[in-house]
Every structure is written in structure tokens, then in C-alpha cells.
């Protein structure tokens, strides 16, 4: 166990080392402060409660948008992947919404719904749904037809079919879109926050960027990344290991 756990820690350490070297070479703390220089501002932001406040706001938005986008995107992707007719109808919409700039969607949502939390989450969700749908559609197209036939003949219920026949086949696609999904969502949340919210990591990052305070930008960015690493190690990877057990057994 310890041998396995040391891998990630080592590689995080290596990354930190690289950063220290890069910072030393850059020799301009305004452009790239060394990791050590971030500790004090980090502790300060933490103790004043500013960082938890903004991080919390962002996490709530990310969580909402993630759940909504995964549900909607999976449903749409499955429908498109399984039925050529649905696909032909929705495909152009998918391409259009996929390539609609985040800015446009965000501004329209804010103007229609108002500068509210709901508008922010809607904007992010709308931005992300086509991404999820695209990935899941490919997964749905690759579903095994023999297993489908088996499920049909044995009259499995819709739930059983979904949980035990479809879902395990979609697992790699779900994992891929969940992981790259959270990343994209969080990037859009950043934009959403600086365009119309008064809280959140994106708001802080943009503000400190305007002030050209790279250290603070990094403090906020890395706090979120820290949370994501925790989610990855505590939730996603154990789940994936479980879901993948049959492959390696």
C-alpha cells in the first residue's frame, strides 16, 4: 500500500521541485513566485475566511453544474448514440451549442434570467452539456449488440438493463467525461464568475489578475486544484478501481 501511495506523492513533489527551479530561473516573483512565497498569503486568506468563502461558492456552482450537465448530457448522448434518427435531428444543435462561445451563452443567460445564481449555473450547464453528450454518444454507439439482445430475450427491466448492461459499458466514457468535465466546468465557472458574480474563485482570480498579483492568482487556483486532487483520490479513483476490477481480475 505505501509503495503504491508514494508514487503520486513523489510526482507532486517533482512538480513542486520543477516549479521552484522555474521560479528561481524566472527570478521575478511578480511573474512566477516560488511555492514558498504562496504559503503566507494562503494562510492569511484562509484565516480571514475569504478563501473558504469564495472556494465554497465556486464549489457549489461547480457541483450543481456538474450534476446537471452529466445527467442531461448522458441522456442526450445516449439517445443520439442509440437512435440514428434522433442523432440526425439533434446533431447540428450539438455542433452549434458545442461551439457557441461561453461568453455568448453566459451573457445571454445573465440578460434573460438576471444576474442570479440560477443564471450562472444554467450558463455553465448549457456550456457543458454538449461536451458530455458528444462523449457519451460515442460510448452509446459502441455498445455491444449481443448483450442487448440477451437483455431483451431475458426481459430484463429497464433499470436492470441500464445499471448492469449499459452503464458498465459506458463507464470509460463516463469517467472520461466526468473528469475532463469537471475541469471544463470549472474553467467556465471562472468566466461566469468574473462576468457577473460577486463571489467565487473566478471572481478573486480575475480581480487579482487585474492587480497583477500572480501570487494571489496562484493561491486561489491551487486551492481549487487541491480540492480536485482530493476528490480524485478520495472518490473518483476508488470508484474507478471498483468499476474496473473485472478487467484486471
Amino acid at each position, binding site marked *: 500500500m505505501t509503495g503504491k501511495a508514494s508514487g503520486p506523492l513523489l510526482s507532486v513533489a517533482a512538480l513542486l521541485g520543477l516549479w521552484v527551479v522555474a521560479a528561481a530561473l524566472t527570478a521575478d516573483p511578480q511573474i512566477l513566485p516560488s511555492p514558498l512565497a504562496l504559503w503566507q498569503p494562503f494562510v492569511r486568506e484562509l484565516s480571514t475566511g475569504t478563501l473558504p468563502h469564495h472556494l465554497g461558492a465556486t464549489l457549489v456552482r461547480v457541483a450543481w453544474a456538474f450534476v446537471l450537465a452529466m445527467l442531461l448530457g448522458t441522456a442526450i448522448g445516449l439517445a443520439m448514440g442509440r437512435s440514428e434518427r434522433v442523432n440526425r435531428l439533434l446533431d447540428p444543435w450539438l455542433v452549434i451549442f458545442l461551439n457557441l462561445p461561453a461568453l455568448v451563452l453566459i*451573457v445571454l443567460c445573465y*440578460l434573460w434570467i*438576471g444576474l442570479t445564481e440560477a443564471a450562472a449555473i444554467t450558463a455553465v450547464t448549457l456550456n457543458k452539456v454538449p461536451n458530455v453528450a458528444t462523449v457519451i454518444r460515442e460510448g452509446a454507439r459502441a455498445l455491444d449488440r449481443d448483450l442487448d439482445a440477451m437483455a431483451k430475450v431475458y426481459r430484463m427491466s429497464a433499470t436492470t438493463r441500464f445499471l448492469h448492461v449499459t452503464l458498465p459499458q459506458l463507464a470509460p466514457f463516463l469517467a472520461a467525461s466526468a473528469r475532463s468535465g469537471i475541469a471544463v466546468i470549472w474553467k467556465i465557472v471562472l468566466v461566469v464568475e468574473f462576468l457577473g*458574480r460577486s463571489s467565487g474563485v473566478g*471572481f478573486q482570480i*480575475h480581480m487579482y489578475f*487585474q*492587480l497583477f498579483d500572480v501570487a494571489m492568482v496562484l493561491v486561489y487556483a491551487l486551492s481549487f486544484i487541491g480540492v480536485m486532487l482530493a476528490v480524485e483520490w478520495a472518490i473518483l479513483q476508488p470508484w474507478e478501481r471498483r468499476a474496473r476490477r473485472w478487467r484486471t481480475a
Partner: protein
Amino acid sequence: QDLPVIRAAVLQIGTVNWELTAIRENGFDTEHGFDLEVQGYADNAATRIAVEGGEADMAVADWIWVARQRAAGKDYVFIPYSKAVGALLVPEDSEAEDLTDMAGGKIGIAGGPLDKSWLILRAYAQQEYGMDLKAETEQVFGAPPLIFKSGLSGDYAGSINFWHFLAKMKAGGMRELVSVETAASELGLDPDTPLLGYYMKEDFIEAHPGIAQSFYNASRDVKDMLADDDGAWEAVRPQMNAKTDAQFEQLKADWLAGAPARGPVDAEAAGRLLALMAELGGEELVGEATTVPEGLFADVQ
């Protein structure tokens, strides 16, 4: 008794916030019969969406932008705030003496090709030296902080930025080659025309008669207080993000220098500026506002 509320959407770190905070902290808002609520945003665009989306009653913009919106049918009204404008700065060791020395070099510009300072400087170069500044230099448009940073590192022959970045660049040793104010006077424009101001929707003003004047009064009170009393700046200082005393002094001086004279905007002088902008920036900049739209400037005394 319920006072009318003005919800102001401003850049959290904007210089306008210094004034608004001072208004609230010194109770100038209630004194003049309204309650001020400040919403901080991280980007200018956000403040505009807030007003348009009805989440705020007031934001900050230059009046040319407001004129454009008004001409396009929005009922925005402009209340003057500052006449601070940009300048073209050159690195400390630059040997440039006037704009002609920019020829063949790079100019870093925050705010894009329709930036008003850039347009005025182009007109000035044309009139003064017969030089097409746009054709004879290479322009690098970038986000203000990036222009600030690369300008300081000496990447450009000249830099044009927003005034508070300019103040920090000056504090960092850069030298002002030509100020937009000078250029504007040379072009026959009135340098006292305040470019920057608050804007509100007309129906908001109608719903609360006299609110524009009340707000303007509060704004003037703060300006007077800060001009007279050095000590009052100490309350503002934490917001100013000045890293050094030099930066603090420069920001303070530039801010005070930007305070316009009390009174309404001279619509005629504004008309001349707008005509020049329309000529230089074309429809892209002014939209349908080829002349100052009726009722653009609030009649504040």
C-alpha cells in the same frame, strides 16, 4: 423613513470604488437623501450586464460608450466623474522625444483598437507631424495587466494603458512622452470635458426625482474632502493597492488631477470630441451616435 437606494455596480478594484466607499463611510449618501449599495464585480463587462439586467442602477463608463448605447435606444443618462485620461509612456532609458520616434516600433495598447486615448493620439500625430501612427507602428493589443507588465519590462517603444496602471508604470520609472490631455488641447478639444462618468437609466431617475443631483452632490463632497484633507486619503489607501509610497503618491496626484470642474458637461465641447471620434473610430466606435444624443448628459450643477 425609507431612503431611495442606488445600487452601484463597479469594478471591485476600480478607482471609482475609492469614491463610492468614501461616500458610504462618511455618510454622504444619507446626508443627501439616498442609500448607496455597492456591488463589486471583477470585470467591467459584468457591471454593464448588471445594469442592463436590472440588478444595478448605476455603473461607470465613458460617455462616448453611453452615447452609443443611447443612440441605439437605451435610455442611459451620464453623470460626470473624472476627466482623467491616458498617456503614452516610454521606458526610462528611451531616447524618444515625440511621437515621430515611435515610427517602426511597437506600441502596447490596453483596451483594443477603439481605445479613446489611442484614437486621440492618432489624430494628434496626424495633425502635428503628418504621421499615420497606425501605419507606421506595430500595435500590440493586450489585457491591461499584461501591457503593464511587458511595458515595464521594456518590450515596447511606447505603452498606452488605463490611468491607474499608468500611475504605477510612472512610479516604476517610465516617462510620459505625451499625455492625451495635451494631445486633445492641441486638437482644439476642451481638455476639461470629463470623459468618464456614472450612468443610470432614465426611468430610474424619473422614479426618484432629483436623485442624479443628490448623487452628484455626494460625489463632489468626497472630491472636495479628498482634495482638502490629506488625512482622508489614509482611509482610502487600503483599497488602492499601492505597493510603495511612490505608487500611492502618484495614484493620489493623478486621481486629484482627474477631478473635473463642478457643473454639467459642456455639450458643445463634447460634440466636437464625438465628431473627431466618429471620424477616427467610425461606426464601429460610435455606432449611430454621430452627434450627441438629446438628454445624454444629466443636468447636474
